[in-house]
């Protein structure tokens, strides 16, 4: 009797299977390859493979003739939030050169960066819903994103990759109808947020798929240097706009949003998602205040004729929509950079993935990957 039970056990033994997800896959948000080891449907180990979009940004930065030619390459790092990428690099260069930009430039930069934050989060939330099967919020959010892209196009001519922030100023001043169209957008967008909340955020199915899934404890997040909504979703109150004081954010009335574990455990996918939703509302608040206070001035008065910093180095970091974007710029006194290292938030946030996907199912893996919100352009540079 004991013998036959043992034989039965041996026949019912399970084996682990290794499945490749990607690099061409609708839900990997770009060319990411995940080597998933599963036992049945339960994931035991995930190994991300990146580098399928490595475009040699750092080599280009060294070989370009001057510092301002690096800005279009910086754009293409995180192509969904190009304005924020440019701001970080340009801010670092201005600190190295000791330039103080006019007030009007500061205000316009804040408005553009917050509009870009909303545009980036619409893609993040839209594709997150799309991965889980919700097609309608994607269409509604992209409709509003088109309004933002139209504002950008009227200002600097490009929809996606702008080359708008220049070292010491901006490439163009805003058009005459900028204030009106931005105000119109803010009014429309407040209605869209209500729509998205009704469709997705408090939807029973969505909550069942994202709450208690992919829990990232706060101390693990800090040790992994996670940043942005991934860190704030775990309850850590850290936002570089407030804590690193890099621009005029202290003049506006706004709050960084932190996850509280409302619908599940603290640090799950739903927390990270709702942090993004609420950040969009805060961005609208900042934009409305900034438009009221927009001063006059010349946006190109501080642009230097020659960009030649002394032999020095700087590590500058700003709050991009996906987290902390850092540039470590080393100058050797000549007109072209010696070394530019881009420290992107998605690169660091993605390294958390093997840690938080153990024990969940493959469908949950898709939800976790969507909640981290990666863009392969910044990961691979």
């Amino acid at each position, binding site marked *: 009797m004991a013998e036959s039970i043992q034989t039965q056990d041996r026949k019912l033994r399970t084996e682990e299977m290794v499945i490749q997800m990607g690099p061409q896959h609708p839900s990997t948000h770009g060319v990411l390859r995940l080597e998933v080891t599963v036992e049945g449907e339960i994931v035991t180990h995930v190994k991300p493979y*990146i*580098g399928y979009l*490595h475009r*040699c940004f*750092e*080599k280009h930065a*060294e070989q370009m003739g001057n510092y301002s030619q690096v800005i279009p390459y910086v754009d293409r790092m995180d192509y969904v939030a190009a304005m924020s990428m440019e701001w970080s690099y340009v801010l670092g260069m201005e*600190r*190295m050169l000791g330039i103080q930009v006019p007030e009007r430039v500061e205000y316009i930069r804040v408005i553009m960066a917050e509009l870009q934050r909303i545009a980036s989060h619409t893609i993040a939330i839209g594709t997150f819903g799309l991965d889980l099967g919700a097609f309608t919020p994607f269409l509604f959010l992209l409709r509003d994103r088109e309004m933002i892209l139209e504002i950008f196009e009227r200002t600097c001519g490009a929809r996606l990759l702008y080359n708008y922030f220049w070292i010491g100023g901006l490439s163009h001043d805003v058009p005459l109808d900028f204030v009106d169209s931005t105000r119109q957008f803010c009014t429309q967008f407040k209605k869209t947020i209500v729509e998205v909340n009704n469709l997705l955020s408090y939807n029973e199915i969505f909550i069942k798929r994202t709450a208690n899934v992919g829990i990232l404890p706060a101390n*693990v997040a*800090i*040790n*992994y*240097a996670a940043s942005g909504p991934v860190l704030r979703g775990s309850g*850590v109150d*850290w936002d570089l706009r407030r*804590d690193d004081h890099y621009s005029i954010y202290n003049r506006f009335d706004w709050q960084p949003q932190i996850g509280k574990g409302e619908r599940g455990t603290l640090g799950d996918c739903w927390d990270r998602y709702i942090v993004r939703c609420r950040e969009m509302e805060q961005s609208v608040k900042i934009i409305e205040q900034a438009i009221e206070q927009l001063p006059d001035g010349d946006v190109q008065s501080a642009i230097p004729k020659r960009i030649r910093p002394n032999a*020095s*180095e*700087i*590590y500058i*970091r700003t709050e991009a929509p996906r987290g*902390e974007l*850092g540039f*470590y710029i*080393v100058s050797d006194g000549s007109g072209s950079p010696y*070394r530019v*290292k881009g*420290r992107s938030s998605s*690169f*660091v946030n993605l*390294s958390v993935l093997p840690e938080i996907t153990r024990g969940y199912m493959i469908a949950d893996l898709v939800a976790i990957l969507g909640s981290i919100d990666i863009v392969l352009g910044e990961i*691979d540079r």
Partner: protein
Amino acid sequence: MSPQEILNKLTEKFADAIVEAKVEGVLEPYAKVKVESIREISSLMRDDSDLQFDTLMCLSGMDYGKGILGVVYNLGSIAKKHKFTLKIEISVEAANVSSVESVWRTADWHEREAFDLFGIVFTDHPDLRRILLPDDWEGYPLRKDYQVQEFYHGMKVPY
């Protein structure tokens, strides 16, 4: 804590490990330390109650030219809101550094990238292999003397 206070704290325990330090008149206060002591210094930076550098913001490989490579560690603290930089220098022939992955888990991927693009070998790293380039790529691209290979698996690489 100000950069000078951080440097003083470092000098208390590791005075002979500090090769060079500059905290005044620079945008990024730094301390250049000896290669052998990087892991102990990192543990001190993370665990000391006054320093509490709980995040490694960025780890970059460097090629200083003339056969000298380097690694730059940008440390940040969420608890105390201060920053500091550590630097080390190694020669191309003996490019071995002990990994700080056991101190900050984020160094895992950053060190793989420095290995991939500069050829710096991190000892005691759990999984040191190329991360951005294919596994059978020849050469380390971000070194200043890198030459692009003509063909890779039958595809022409240069324009």
